[in-house]
């Protein structure tokens, strides 16, 4: 598990440079990517795919917002790099490949994974906005 968490840190770093994220933001954004995979691995031990992705993107959303607030950085690069390990790129590729080879059961399975991962990420990020606003009111604006 530790190797995969380190690998997600590297994946985040790789994509951050591909997306031209400024160097000072990259270590923080990559750490959020590693954190998201850590939460995903832990939660997938007992929860399903969609719920695990939801929880990890919730953590990405909140940690990215806290980092952006403290460092006065924009939110978008932190979130985009943070969700890199969760993004259903591989399952989308396999889904399309199965459609191509007319393996419809496989195609449906991977399409299901892609749709629920993408939805889990989006719902998690949207929920993190509301939770962060509540936290901000409770902690910083007291």
């Amino acid at each position, binding site marked *: 598990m530790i*190797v*995969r968490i380190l*690998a*997600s*840190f*590297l*994946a985040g*770093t*790789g*994509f*951050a*440079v*591909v*997306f*031209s*994220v*400024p160097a000072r*933001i990259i270590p923080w954004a990559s750490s959020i990517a590693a954190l998201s*995979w850590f939460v995903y691995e832990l939660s997938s031990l007992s929860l399903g795919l969609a719920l695990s992705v939801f929880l990890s993107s919730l953590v990405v959303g909140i940690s990215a917002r806290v980092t952006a607030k403290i460092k006065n950085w*924009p939110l*978008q*690069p932190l979130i*985009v790099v943070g*969700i*890199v*390990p969760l*993004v*259903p*790129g*591989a399952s*989308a*590729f396999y889904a*399309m*490949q199965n*459609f*191509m*080879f007319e393996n419809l059961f496989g195609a449906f399975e991977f399409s299901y994974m*892609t749709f629920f991962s*993408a*939805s889990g*990420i*989006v*719902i998690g*990020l*949207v929920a993190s906005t509301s939770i962060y606003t509540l936290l901000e009111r409770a902690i910083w604006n007291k």
Partner: protein
Amino acid sequence: MRTEDILFMMILFGRGIASSGGSATDVERYIEEIGRKNGFKTEVASTPTVIHISIVEADGRSWSRIERIKVERPNFYKIMGYRRLMKDYMHDENSGEDTIELLKELEKGREHYSVFLRSLFAALAAFAFSIVFGGSLVEASLSMSITLPVFFSLVQLPSNRMLIDFLAGFTITILAVSAGHLFDLNSSNIIVGSIMPFVPGILITNSVLELANRNLVSGSSKLTEALLILASLVFGASSAYFVVGGAL
């Protein structure tokens, strides 16, 4: 500032953010903020290929402009530059005229990282994804070695995205299957790592996010684009399977 200059500034902001991979929601928010600052009622609709702005002055006269957008790859360095310029303009640290000049400079600006450095880090991402998806160290290293030259050569091709992704899928699969056959490795673990820098995963997530924000036109067109890119990658990979399947 004249109304047409304000409209020009809106276009520069909108075009810059959209072509750097910013969301339609951000484009619309920035343009509306400029309109509000200057006392205009602003209506804006942003899609990944077109921005339509309409502003109404206090006396009822209206101005409208449509701008075609050429979407490039995500560039957060530029997006941060637009954010900084917007902040300075809103806090009156830069005048409207200065902001327009700075926007023009930012639009012409060079890439923040060189093509080789981006290719090197895309290869690093391929290595990491191969490990995350259960590949061995050797498979991940092969994945990295394949991605570096493929990414480096393909990002410089002045061609459309579909052809580039078809070529990426084709080349990666040919090389990965050959390497897998040569070293007796699982070629799927090599392919899945190498293909990740080309898969439009972020585009898929952004499209769902925009659909959730009720940006239906932008969300659905981004989703269509992502599916076409995926289809090109897979067509390339499938063609390569047929080629190497017969040869090996």
